[in-house]
């Protein structure tokens, strides 16, 4: 597989100067002459999920011969791809599609069951920024620790401390314990450690999701720098914006199988199509297909100016748009929504009659196209969320005419350190004994 040294470099030079095409903000580069640095062939991974987990020796001793009932969950099936040196490779997929499992196999965190995986060069050992940090250590010690995890020697890592702090704009904080850092500072530190240590291949699981807008911009700039300096990056995300703008090539996973690989624009469109096609709603088999009265056309979040967004700042309200086409008439249509967080905790649910100018509609006719726009206040703490929607008949929320589980994946970002599930605005007053 070794292509003689100078050749691929010449190709890169050529591609970045002469064959650049600009599409949106992204740049398409032809890297097909570069050597392959990751080659996966037929990767498969099955998890065995015990129905009843035996997690004590006592139970083992009491029931030594009880056969463990397990369900098999195919997380990945026969996934093959190649990533070339200097390439930005995106892996897209819905929640549970296997994209994180794949990244964990690449990072040697999980074992593969079948298939072959070959990697050339040093691979970053992290899949999330800052997981190697120790809260009790100061910034400089953490940089050294992280550097060593990346495969540097201690001396090499120590010599990088100043450069990393410079890049992160944290020069004055080298002696401060990490636990006193704001989340924005932490991300900056983690990101610059990753960039400054000489890792050939970076694995990133949705970093752009965290941090304030200015930091996202900084990350984007850094990504562009990395692109130019020839770093190879594998980026896992559900955000089609980053796939289309950053990646040279992308792959789409659905239920553990790769459904498309190649041009990021095509992958993005396929993802959207998959998300809202009948195929996607088939897994809700408890709504028999003959009772599905509507077809989902799309679901997205909008900002105040009507632009589609997938990330929300903490203070932005949530405006969800769900567009569908009626296939059969529905009386007294009722529209319900639900927001769940990444741990599948249901945070909020609501139901409202479908309205026109404030008045409930009595009947939606077959062939009508409707976009229901729901605005809810955003009390969510920073994190990942998904929203599900249903259209119901006869004003009865159990009589489902269409449903879309996890129709919208979105991220709320912010730097405040709220704990818990929802953000509250406390208004305090004080009463002392004498006030009555």
């Amino acid at each position, binding site marked *: 597989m*070794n292509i003689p040294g100078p050749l691929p470099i010449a190709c890169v030079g050529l591609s970045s100067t002469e064959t650049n095409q600009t599409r949106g903000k992204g740049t398409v580069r032809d890297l097909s002459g570069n050597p*392959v640095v990751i080659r996966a062939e037929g990767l498969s991974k099955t998890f065995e999920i015990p129905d009843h987990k035996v997690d004590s020796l006592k139970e083992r001793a009491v029931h030594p011969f009880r056969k463990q009932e397990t369900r098999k969950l195919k997380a990945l099936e026969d996934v093959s791809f190649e990533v070339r*040196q200097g390439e930005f490779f995106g892996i897209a997929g819905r929640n549970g599609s296997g994209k994180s499992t794949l990244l964990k196999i690449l990072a*040697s965190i999980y*074992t593969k069951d079948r298939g072959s995986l070959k990697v050339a060069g040093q691979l970053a050992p992290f899949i*999330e920024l800052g997981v*190697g940090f120790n809260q009790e250590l100061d910034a400089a010690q953490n940089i050294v620790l992280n550097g060593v995890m990346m495969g540097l020697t201690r001396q090499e890592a120590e010599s990088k401390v100043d450069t990393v702090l410079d890049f992160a704009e944290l020069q004055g904080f080298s002696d401060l314990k990490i636990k006193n850092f704001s989340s924005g500072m932490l991300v900056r530190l983690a990101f610059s450690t990753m960039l400054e240590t000489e890792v050939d291949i970076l694995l990133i699981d949705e970093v752009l999701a965290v941090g304030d807008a200015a930091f996202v911009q900084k990350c984007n700039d850094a990504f562009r720098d990395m692109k130019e300096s*020839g770093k190879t990056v594998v980026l896992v995300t559900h955000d089609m914006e980053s796939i289309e703008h950053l990646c040279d090539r992308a792959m789409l996973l659905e239920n553990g199988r790769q459904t498309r690989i190649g041009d990021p624009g095509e992958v993005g469109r396929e993802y959207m199509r998959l998300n809202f096609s009948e195929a996607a709603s088939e897994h809700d088999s408890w709504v028999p297909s003959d009772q599905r009265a509507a077809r989902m056309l799309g679901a997205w979040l909008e900002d105040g100016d009507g632009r589609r967004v997938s990330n929300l700042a903490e203070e932005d309200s949530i405006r969800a748009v769900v567009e569908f086409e009626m296939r059969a008439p529905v009386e007294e249509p009722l529209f319900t929504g639900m927001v769940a967080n990444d741990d599948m905790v249901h945070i909020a649910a609501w139901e409202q009659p479908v309205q026109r100018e404030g008045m409930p509609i009595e009947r939606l006719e077959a062939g009508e196209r409707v976009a229901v726009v729901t605005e809810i206040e955003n009390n969510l703490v920073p994190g990942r969320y998904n929203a599900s929607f249903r259209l119901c008949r006869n004003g009865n929320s159990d009589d489902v005419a269409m449903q879309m589980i996890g129709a919208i994946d979105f991220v709320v970002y912010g730097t405040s350190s709220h704990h818990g599930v929802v953000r509250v605005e406390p208004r305090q007053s004080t009463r002392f004994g004498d006030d009555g």
Partner: protein
Amino acid sequence: MAEAPPPPKLVEVRGPTALGGGFRRFFELLWLIAVNDFKKAYFGTVLGYFWSLLRPLALFAVLLFVFTRIFRIGSEVEYYPVLLLFNIVMISFFQEATLGSVASVVNQENLVRKTRFPRLVIPLAVVLTGLFNFGTNLIAVLIFIIAFGVPLTWTWLLFPLIVIALFVFTMAVSMLLSALYVRFRDVGIIWSVLVTAIFYATPVLYPIEIVPSQYVDWIMANPLTPIFEQARHWVIDPGAPGAVSAAGGVTGLLPAALIYVAVCVAAVIVFRREAPRIAEEL
């Protein structure tokens, strides 16, 4: 594109392992983490060193009172107070390292599930930090040795052999426990009981020669017993029986040696088998 990177060579990825990512990285990480933990304990607070000494010293003071004033074993044994402190410092290393490592891998869930981290580093760092503590506690022992006028002998030079034997065994037990704990959470409870039993089954409070003869074989089967007896013979009291004479000959040491080796072999096998799956089991 300033310089041409060397043409990369594709290498098969074998997935997570106990050592994960080469020996150099393994030892660098092990050292860094153990040193950081040690520093945290000692330099975090002004009295750090005294706090860490306080536990063995307090235990020592109580036991010394009980065994010299109430049971009066102490008066029959040469340099009993020094021996007692020495033994307590050694057994404390074993206890603290093994108890600390049981849940260590599970507690470092974030590292295990989100980074390619050599799994073995986690329990070993706990043991290594314990070893540093052991070293500083030995300073207190040395002060007692001088204060009680224990004669200096050339056999002190052999003490590192004791430390190695104790360290290896502690390491093996820690590996075994931390790997099993991932699957069986009651290992933690079982071990906290067992560790107390082992404390009494090891000649810490008493010298081996006062153990009734029908129990000597049992006590001698404990792999820690020969280590403790030999340490006493070499460091505190050359007149005391060493491991061999306490066991009544080399064959008497066989059970302890077999258990020692079996634990070490089991530790390596179990840890190697469990390491690749730890991230998935959590």
